[in-house]
């Protein structure tokens, strides 16, 4: 499921006196089976961008192609059901979408909507719950009796249950504890192994460098970089300041070392790499 944006413009309230333009001439591509990270400061249009992938928003002008589905300003609401079946969406704080009496019923909601019968929906839901690590003993409980972390998992299972080919996540790690974040990254990698296309928004550069194959930088509603994390994080530090982005932790540390007079042979992107480079530096002396 390749995703392609061509000259996409988007305004909220287009055609009214209060129109607000958010995306300007966005063209980009996300490859099938790859993990794409979208980064950028708050208000740069990241969330607006990803909501085009399952047709929650339609471009004011331009075109989004998802596999063989073409999304333009003229696409009808009815046609979007087939698209939403293929694209699962996990929102910021997805636990706010829980509503059913039991965990399993809540997760069965999407498959049932997309035309599975009860048995099929149930087995899909069980698979999704197992994948995100919700213990079977919780399946018949009310989702509102769960802890915050468990609710988050159930909500993610709710988006994964219809077995979509593309999974879009809007800041999935926000508000999770370190262990939860690690498990989330493992889930993302596992989804990739299953051949899914994953798109996620993140503010944590370490997550990006850890899992992403490709990174897209949004700035003021425009794409200001579309490249690999390795290339991106080796750019000049001033560019990051201009985009109001951070380096991964290891990179930040090496910048500080350099200011303190210790220059490493290149900028490390992970903590392991940082350790290697410092070791080498010490051996040299």
């Amino acid at each position, binding site marked *: 499921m390749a995703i392609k944006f061509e000259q996409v413009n988007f305004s909220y309230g287009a055609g009214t006196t209060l129109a607000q333009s958010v995306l300007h001439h966005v063209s980009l591509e996300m490859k099938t089976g790859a993990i794409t990270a979208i980064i950028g400061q708050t208000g740069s249009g990241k969330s607006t961008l990803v909501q085009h992938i399952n047709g929650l928003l339609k471009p004011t002008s331009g075109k989004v192609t998802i596999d063989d589905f073409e999304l333009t300003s003229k696409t009808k609401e009815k046609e979007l059901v087939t698209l939403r079946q293929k694209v699962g969406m996990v929102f910021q704080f997805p636990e*706010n979408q829980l509503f059913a009496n039991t965990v399993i019923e809540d997760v069965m909601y999407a498959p049932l909507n997309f035309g599975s019968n009860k048995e099929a929906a149930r087995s899909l839901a069980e698979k999704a719950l197992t994948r995100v690590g919700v213990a079977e003993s919780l399946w018949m409980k009310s989702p509102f009796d769960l802890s915050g972390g468990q609710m988050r998992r159930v909500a993610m299972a709710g988006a994964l249950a219809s077995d979509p080919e593309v999974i879009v996540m809007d800041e999935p790690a926000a508000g999770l504890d370190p262990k939860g974040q690690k498990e989330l990254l493992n889930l993302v990698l596992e989804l990739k192994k299953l051949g899914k296309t994953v798109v996620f928004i993140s503010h944590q550069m370490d997550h990006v460098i850890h899992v992403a194959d490709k990174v897209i930088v949004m700035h003021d509603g425009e794409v200001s970089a579309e490249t690999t994390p390795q290339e991106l994080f080796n750019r000049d530090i001033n560019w990051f300041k201009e985009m109001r982005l951070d380096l991964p932790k290891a990179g930040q540390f090496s910048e500080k070392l350099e200011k303190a007079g210790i220059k490493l042979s290149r900028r490390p992107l992970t903590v392991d790499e940082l350790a290697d480079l410092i070791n080498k530096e010490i051996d040299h002396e």
Partner: protein
Amino acid sequence: MNNIMIGRFIPGESFIHRLDPRTKMIATFVYIFVMLWADSWQTYLWAAIFIFASIKLTSQPLKLYWDGLKPIFCLILFTVVLQLLFTPGTPTLLKIGPLQITTTGVVNAVYVMIRFILIILMSTILTLTTPPTSIANAIESLLKPLKKIRVPVAELALMLSIALRFVPLLMDETQKIMNAQKSRGMSFSSGGPIKRAKAIIPLLIPLFIGALQRALDLANAMEVRGFKDAVQRTKYRVLKYNRVDYFAFGCLGVFTVIFIGIKLIS
């Protein structure tokens, strides 16, 4: 969700914007009250002139007011049709069974429509130029005399301003939940009426839970900051009538006097 115009405030620096919110509220009520006595085309014309002059003074595009009228058009149309079909009188223009259209009916229908539009325009001027918190303050200030008979005016005003503050929040929340459930294949437009009503449940339950949670959070936040009811409080924004307000009251008085004059003559 973002294009609902009813009750929307647009900041500005116009004459009407600078008026004390109480002035605007009193003017709105006086205007609505006066409109109840309108009965001839001359009186409606005078009332319309007053409204358009006021709209001009808000320095907002006419389109905004038009957008504000649109959602209420069905309601207006409904009353107009009722007036048209059920007004007795002669001469009868058309008669189908118990329904008849009379000349009085047509005239009444047109008058009712104009009255509706003018009253809505007047309230739109109020909400368009006054922030919701100022409206709440104005209500509190205007209801002050009721304190003497032990009406908890300050508490009512606080409830009102909290409720007003929650409207945009809940609207945001609704949009978010709707997006989430739409992504999970929710559809309002398929199936029979029962199925459609059922489709709202996944929207309503999270919305209610979210609202209750927010209310609890707010109550806690107020409590830890030492909120107590029935305490004499000072205000950050003290309402004060200025020269513009006296001028506005003068205009309102002139409008009313001329209105009564026209009514007596015609």
